[in-house]
């Protein structure tokens, strides 16, 4: 959610039950403004909160003028001092995919993971148990990246593409209408499109190239991994991801307000197919 409209967004996203306490809200308002100034970001998003056992991580992201460019992620333990996280790499992702369980809450905590590695000793090849230390910081980075790639949502029309290349925020976005807001196809993934090329010609003919340049949520696998509800007496659309429980996207139809927040343990819900 945009840091400019933080309070309203938190209010609208509170249907999932998790939010921020007043002291955190106040700290965020101040510190995010300073972050924007210091790092010269175009837009600062408050991404959410990852619950750890000892402490919680508060995550923010900074965007440049091009909305789809790689974002800079920052974390903080007290909503006041922010530290920049390194960008996610493939190596980091594979390394941290073996770690399971909750986050500890201490960025310097190291997970130990024993691996069987083949060690060549002259001509003999034997397996040796190697203990690999994985830092919680890398795990944090890869989880945030995974969540963004999987379930970050933006409504259709909120961003538009210019022929020059960069993706801009659409300042004339008036919000979706009620009938559009109830369809999953009006929401897009907020990341580089993957499925677009696979569309049939018929589908492509209906698309508006300046608005329909992202993947829609309709074709997500497994089908039904999004829960859509109307809250507040039918004036607010809330999308909750079932694959990453804790991610809430809200949008008030006919208004500009939209945003998403993740408040959860940072674990994927692998049991999803059993639960549907």
């Amino acid at each position: 959610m945009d840091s400019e409209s933080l309070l309203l967004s938190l209010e609208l996203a509170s249907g999932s039950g998790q939010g921020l306490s007043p002291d955190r809200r106040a700290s965020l308002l101040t510190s995010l403004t300073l972050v924007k100034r210091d790092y010269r970001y175009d837009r600062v998003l408050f991404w959410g909160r990852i619950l750890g056992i000892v402490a919680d991580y508060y995550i923010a992201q900074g965007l440049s003028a091009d909305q789809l460019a790689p974002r800079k992620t920052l974390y903080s333990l007290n909503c006041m001092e922010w530290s920049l996280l390194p960008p996610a790499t493939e190596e980091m992702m594979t390394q941290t995919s073996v770690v399971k369980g909750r986050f500890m809450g201490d960025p310097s905590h190291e997970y130990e993971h024993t691996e069987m590695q083949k060690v060549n000793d002259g001509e003999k090849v034997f397996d040796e148990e190697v203990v690999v230390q994985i830092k919680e910081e890398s795990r944090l980075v890869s989880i945030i990246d995974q969540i963004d790639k999987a379930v970050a949502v933006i409504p259709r029309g909120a961003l538009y593409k210019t022929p020059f290349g960069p993706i801009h925020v659409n300042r004339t976005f008036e919000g979706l209408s009620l009938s559009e807001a109830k369809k999953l196809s009006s929401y897009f993934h907020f990341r580089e499109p993957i499925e677009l090329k696979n569309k049939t010609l018929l589908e492509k003919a209906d698309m508006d190239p300046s608005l329909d340049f992202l993947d829609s949520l309709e074709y997500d696998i497994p089908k039904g991994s999004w829960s859509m509800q109307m809250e507040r007496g039918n004036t607010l659309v809330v999308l909750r991801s079932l694959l990453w429980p804790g991610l809430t996207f809200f949008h008030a139809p006919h208004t500009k307000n939209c945003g998403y927040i993740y408040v959860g343990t940072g674990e994927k819900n692998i049991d999803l197919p059993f639960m549907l």
Partner: protein
Amino acid sequence: MGDPEFPPQEPLGSQEDQDTLDVQAMRSNLMGWPQAAENQEMYQPEEAQLGTPQYLSPNVSFPAGYQPQPFQEEGDAQLPLSTNLMMQQLQQGQGTFFQHLDSTYQDPRQGFPSSSALYSGEEARFEGAQQGPYMQEDPAYPFLSGDMGYVPFNMDLPEPEPRELAVQNAKAYLLQTSINSHLSLYEHLVNVLTKILNQRPENPLSMLEWLNRTAQAEWFHPKLDTLRDDPEMQPTYEMAERQRALFVRGGQGEGEQEMEEEVGDTAVPNVMEMAFYFEQAGVGLSSDESFRIFMALKQLVEQQPIHTCRFWGKILGLSRSYLVAEVEFREGEEEGEEEEVEEVVEGGEPLEPRDEEEGEEDEEKAADAIPKPTWKPPPVIPREESRSGTNKYLYFVCNEPGRAWTRLPHVTPLQIVQARKIKKFFTGYLDAPVVSFPPFPGNEANYLRAQIARISAATHISPLGFYQFGEEEGDEEEEGGAGRESFEENPDFEGIPVLELVDSMANWVHHVQHILPQGRCSWVNPMQKMEEEEELGEEEEKADEGIEEVEQEIGPPLLTPLSEDAEILHMSPWTARLSCSLCPQYSVAVVRSNLWPGAYTYATGKKFENIYIGWGHKYSPDNFNPPLPAPIQQEYPSGPDVMEMSDPTVEEEQALKAAQEQALAAAEEEEEDEEEEEEEDLED
């Protein structure tokens, strides 16, 4: 369209007036294009009698708003001005055929007429260039001819020339109205340009799209029809009506009496206070949502005979969510419906084995005995009584504040046992089936109730000392070692300092009974019931399949501190924090459950409260593994009449045949011998 800016005027005689008139006329002509379709104005192609361009003196009375100031911003400032003036001069010799038309502009600015003149006006006036009829659309057209002013004109009477026709066609096309409204492209462009000129934004080219959209929006904004309601907004208005009903007090004019009643003790909990404290912890719904819940609970209290009521929490579902209220009815107010339902169910089950037995008896008397099934259903464990154990409280749910509260049925031990084995999302509809393996005995309402029972038992905690056991307690032995069941509030409770609450888990205790693996809080020996069934049965081969000695299941007793809770993978099942580290003196202690994500408790001073907001599932570090299907059952007991025997081979049959023949032959010989002997005997 607005009022005509230039009122129709009679053609005046004097030249100056004529000038004024003509200027006005010209301007109104220029700007009255929308009316062109209606008033077919005739253009007077004229000859340009242009010598030196005459510059109009500022004293010429122009219509309001028209300022002949040079167009400063553009480089070619002179050009539009001169063309303007030239056009004015052209009109001088013109007759009085101009009709004064309405103008769509309210604030014409000086630059505008020149722009439109560039594109549409010139072509009509200047006939000179011998280009084709569509050259006029070329924006560079007016600049193509070298000398701007010296283009010959005909002074003939009006005749629609091909160029004229082309221009009129173009105009007519531009004036086409769109389907949605009575606005045409021409008018829209005119609006946009007026807007730009009025507001003079910086860098207008980059804002062109936005301006376009906003101008459109202003015209196309749908207005509320006085007769018909907007169909899209219908459900929203309905919900709003329902919620409005919450806020309307049910008073019939006796306002004061009601106030007194309400100020006294009501069962409605102070939801707002709870919401405030949980907000400090960063948990909970927004404040207006909490208030609506409060009003809905108040409505519930008025409708049902409720003794105590508590907001239990919110369970999220796929299409709708559930708001759960935990209530206790007043003494003796138990609804009879529930018990009737239970009786029917329980009556059904003991009947079934009976039918089986009778049926089988008949079969026995028949010729062939059908093999009897050896499977006996496991004994049904009776559910706990209302107001005890898992059924201590009654639960009401509703989907949204304003909707009706539905009562959830009591939970049976079997449902709890099965609920532990499955993991399904709630859809939001109470009568939805729960499709799972092992099959869940009930629909979503039962599953919801079972999960609520499990969550309450696992996560409802209170500070140590808040509750204590009553003084009149029977011996533990009498109750079969199940522990004490009841507790009461401790009037001498003084509160534990918040820092201590956060430091050690031993300062918190569970105040809801633990659910045994059997599915109940108090243990019931299933064997006893089986013996009763055995007595009912007759002549059954009751193979005593070892009436197993079922061990009594014991769980932790009531009011056990949290430090005794089992760990999850070396992780404590509870996380305790101060709500605000910056101001510890006013913080509350917040405890979060790691086993049931979404369960929170706060405590400060003498107050504490539990809440659950989440999906309703337990946390498990391992993946969910559904149990495998049971092995296929044996259909018949093995026996010679059922077993398949292998057919004899050919050699065996031949050997048998040979043996039989031999035996036959031997028998015949014997007979012959006997006959011979008899004959011999006879002969003798």
